[in-house]
């Protein structure tokens, strides 16, 4: 008699194996571009241009990094990216956290309307040209402030945090209210500490979208000294490919367009890679345990 010793049916086993294979493929597909870019950035210009790099660097050299790191414009744009990311994230959180709290309160007058108002922007917006004109008329073109406050509120993040606030037991608010706390105190002393996982999540979303923000920065910023790294990267690709003088030097230089581009990309990925593990821990465990008895 056939006996299934490990409690899983044949179907379950096949499912588990198929899932593992799929996840493996996805992981490889996501990871490979990183490895490839890193490998290219350390490779010689000829090898990269000839498409010889697959996983490991060919003709290993730091020439591309030397070229990138000695460009003052690289450092300026890098600094700008930090300004947009840190400033933008702080402004976003300062608006999203109180906003989400207000939207989560049953006593908010016109709550349904406001919630709909926010959710509406998830599906509909004015479009590119009207938005550009709006920013222009507000005098927010080519300015740090424009980039920072122009994209401060993201409806998705707002709704995500609102939902989290709504899921917290009402008795926390009531207990704090009985203790004499007003709404601001309830928010900052009770709800924010209880919502660390959710706030960490939206912080990371904000950081990543700010860090990678490219399109609007390209559209709204003209001055070279204000552009972020992503726009600088694009400029570099454009100028290097068009620059005949530079192309002519390629025969004598150990780097090329591809390796310089890859080096900039690697430089731009590093900070996010550094931040992520710190935020990661909040995703893993909730801190609600023990406060209320379910």
């Amino acid at each position, binding site marked *: 008699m056939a006996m299934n010793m490990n409690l899983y049916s044949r179907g379950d086993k096949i499912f588990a194996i198929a899932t593992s294979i799929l996840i493996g493929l996805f992981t490889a597909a996501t990871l490979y571009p990183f490895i490839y870019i890193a490998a290219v950035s350390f490779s010689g210009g000829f090898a990269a241009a000839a498409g010889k790099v697959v996983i490991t660097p060919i003709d290993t050299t730091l020439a591309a990094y030397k070229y990138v790191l000695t460009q003052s414009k690289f450092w300026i744009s890098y600094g700008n990216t930090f300004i947009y990311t840190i400033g933008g994230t702080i402004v976003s959180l300062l608006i999203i956290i109180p906003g989400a709290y207000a939207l989560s309160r049953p006593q908010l007058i016109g709550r349904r309307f406001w919630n709909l108002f926010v959710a509406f922007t998830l599906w509909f917006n004015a479009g590119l040209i009207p938005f550009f004109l709006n920013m222009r008329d507000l005098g927010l073109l080519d300015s740090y402030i424009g980039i920072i406050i122009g994209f401060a509120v993201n409806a998705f993040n707002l709704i995500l945090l609102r939902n989290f606030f709504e899921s917290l037991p009402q008795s926390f608010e009531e207990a704090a*209210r009985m203790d004499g706390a007003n709404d601001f105190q309830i928010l900052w002393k009770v709800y924010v500490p209880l919502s660390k996982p959710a706030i960490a999540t939206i912080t990371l979303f904000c950081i990543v979208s700010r860090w990678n923000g490219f399109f609007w920065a390209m559209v709204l910023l003209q001055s070279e000294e204000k552009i972020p790294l992503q726009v600088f990267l694009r400029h570099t690709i454009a100028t290097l490919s068009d620059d005949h003088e530079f192309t002519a030097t390629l025969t004598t230089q150990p780097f090329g367009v591809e390796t310089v581009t890859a080096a900039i990309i690697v430089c731009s990925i590093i900070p996010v890679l550094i931040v992520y593990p710190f935020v990661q821990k909040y995703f893993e465990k909730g801190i609600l345990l023990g406060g209320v008895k379910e």
Partner: protein
Amino acid sequence: MSGVKLDNIVKAYGEIEVVHGINLEVQEKEFVVLVGPSGCGKSTTLRMIAGLEEITDGELKIDDRLVNRVAPKDRDVAMVFQNYALYPHLNVAENIAFGLRIRKESKEAIEKSVSEVGEILGLTPYLQRRPADLSGGQRQRVAMGRAIVRRPKVFLFDEPLSNLDAKLRTQMRAEIKRLHKRLGATSVYVTHDQVEAMTLADRIVVMNAGVIEQIGTPMEVFMNPVNTFVAGFIGSPPMNQVKAVIQKRQGSSELHAKIGDDLVKLPETLPIEDGQEVILGIRPEHLSLNPDASSTSIPISLDLVETLGSEALLHATLNETPIIAKTETQGDIDHLWEVTEVHAPVSLIKLFDAQTGLAIREKSGS
């Protein structure tokens, strides 16, 4: 006087009225328990006193001050929540100190109060722990600590023991009683557990469907329920209720209740008519196996004996109505199976009007 006065308090959610004009006066230092089945409006009433629910109509006074439109924090009341609502990110000391910090009391004063409260509640060794690292009983104590540290005029308890297991509940019940004796604070306590109500209360308020059915001391409510609802709610097991018809003989002062073919003797002073339909009520504890001069016998047909150790519950029927008798076992229950009749002291038999369910009380002065 730190009393609480509810004057015709009404609560409605839109069209639906859930509390229908209740009147209650809680005296200073009194421990009043609101008890009733779920949905009877007891928690809503408590939350109106706390200021967590708006009062639709009527007047609420705390300490002779009208507080209908006063914010919870300005009412000088503290509440212990059913789910404790301890802040998980703060340790025990910080949880207890939260209200004082919000009120910007000095650091020394806060430290002193917290250590005092820790002492009173036996929480001193746990002050640095987070709620997650405490047992259910300890969390409950922290929740009480958070309330008493502010020395409010009125304590409100919203089913504080319902999340504890039976043993712990008994223990905490005694602790709450002791604490009340020690602090002497005016308290309003909500529970659906009539045992808690009986043991804790100076006065019990029995609520049902948004109205107060009866207010009285535990013994009053137990011995003299005003209607069949209270009779059926208070007491464990509750009062037996059997339909009967009054039989009054011409020229005799004797009163009997006819249940099926059996006659049960009644107190002669009850204002009832011959042929009147009534509900006869008798507590299981008052039914005894041994007759005496002042008792009347009631024939029963026994169908189950439930042993509780020192006591046994006899489940039986009387004219097809289930009734329960509670009796002491003295270590032996076999003989209980032979019981065919129980005896009720005539004076302890209660009558209720069969239509209204209201108690038929003895004529005054007799």
